[in-house]
């Protein structure tokens, strides 16, 4: 029997994307990014003077990312406050976004990026990175380019793009694999590389190829939202 995804998408199809700019008027830049039912919002504050003062670096500004789930964004209420998981995702998001920023232009400062997930259906870190990348652009921070992020997964032997929670919980054959990636748009520079599951080493190349079309679509959606905001 031919392989079919739970929601009928083709292996290379993303869920419908929603991208909006300026969802938080108080912030210097803000954005919403959704993959289907996964909704992330991000706010950027800064560059602003870093406190406490002893943390300031006269050579460069720093990027500080905080990612978390809202308590009711998941079925079993998430206890508010940082967890080890959210601390790790905050850090990898920081690493995923920093390479496009030239923070040396803003010594002694911090750029705060706050990412919250309102509704979670897998792919929250990748939606968060896409939202944060748009929010940084909205804040007018000089960037080499936008960062685009998507999770590629594997269900048994089928490589699929942008998994839902139901697909992540797949349990059969080689099991589920979740392979979140981010890269600088229009380059072959990867800024996020994580993986959980089982994927044969020789199929990594195939994953990168299928992700490329997804990156292109995400980039278009991000650009479109930014252009609408500034036109």
């Amino acid at each position: 029997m031919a392989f079919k995804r739970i929601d009928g998408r083709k292996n290379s199809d993303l869920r419908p994307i929603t991208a909006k700019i300026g969802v938080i008027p108080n912030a210097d830049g803000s954005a919403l990014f959704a993959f289907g039912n996964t909704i992330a919002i991000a706010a950027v504050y800064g560059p602003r003077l870093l406190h406490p003062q002893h943390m300031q670096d006269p050579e460069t500004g720093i990027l500080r990312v905080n990612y978390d789930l809202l308590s009711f964004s998941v079925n079993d209420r998430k206890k508010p406050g940082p967890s080890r998981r959210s601390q790790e995702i905050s850090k990898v998001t920081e690493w995923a976004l920093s390479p496009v920023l030239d923070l040396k232009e803003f010594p002694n400062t911090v750029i705060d990026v706050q990412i919250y997930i309102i509704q979670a259906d897998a792919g929250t870190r990748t939606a968060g990175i896409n939202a944060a990348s748009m929010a940084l652009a909205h804040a007018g921070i000089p960037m080499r380019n936008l960062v685009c992020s998507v999770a590629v997964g594997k269900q048994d032997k089928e490589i699929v793009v942008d998994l839902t929670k139901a697909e992540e919980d797949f349990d059969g054959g080689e099991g589920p694999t979740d392979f979140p990636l981010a890269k600088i748009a229009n380059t072959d520079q990867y800024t996020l590389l994580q993986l959980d599951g089982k994927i044969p080493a020789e199929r990594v190349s195939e994953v990168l190829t299928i992700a490329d079309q997804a990156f292109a679509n995400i980039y278009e959606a991000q650009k479109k939202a930014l252009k609408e905001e500034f036109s």
Partner: protein
Amino acid sequence: MSSMKSAGITIDTFKKLFTAGKRFDGRGLMEYRPFEVNFEVSNCAEGSARVRLGKSEVIVGVKMNIDKPYPDSPDKGNLMVSADLLPLASPRFEAGPPKFDAIELPRLVDRAIRESGMINLKELVVTPGEKVWTVIIDIYPINADGNLIDAASIGAAAALKSAVIPGITEAGTPDYKHRTKKKLPLSDETLPLSITVFKLGNTLFLDPTREEEEASETRTTFGVSKWKGSYMINSCQKSAPVCLTRAEIEEIAKLLPKKYDELNERLKKFL
């Protein structure tokens, strides 16, 4: 674990050396330091191992408790991995609440072991839905001289292999004084190992000393195992705000099976 910034001159020196394919200790860029594994670090642990990888030394212990299963896996035992970067092990480690490195290390080891399926957690159920064994792997670096994640993963795999399940008292609690002879339900084929690839400038290299690690710009840890005859990547995480190119990722994917075989052969001699 580079909590200290290297001087510019150190970084330049390493860049020059690495570009010429050389290292201070004469190793090739993709060559691991010699390692040895000993067992029975503590006779109070269910299993334990000491790994010396070059001058890096890590001890790993396995303890087991009886707990309730997690709500989302009522038919499975639990696995927990923790690490403490003791100030004993390095002038770079400080007392106090865990810093990010101390959170990341056990999570990377946890994912490599869990996703590989090395432990059959379904066989660790005592009373279905009520009581299951929790396997706790605790990692302590004793001397940190680079590449602690790979050393810790070797130690964790070895400690698991050596672990013996405790008895159960009439009250249903673990009986540590009367251990069974039963080993943990581990796969014969699947032995997860972590292989961490470091990058400085345009050079990739493995198993750095502390000085090399501190000079490196980024590291990416891969959990690798063999499953039904193929080499599987079970986990991966890139650190630091530096990119990897597609060509580099593809080069690493080719390298991993070879390095896995080499480390696995070396580890088998101790098991």
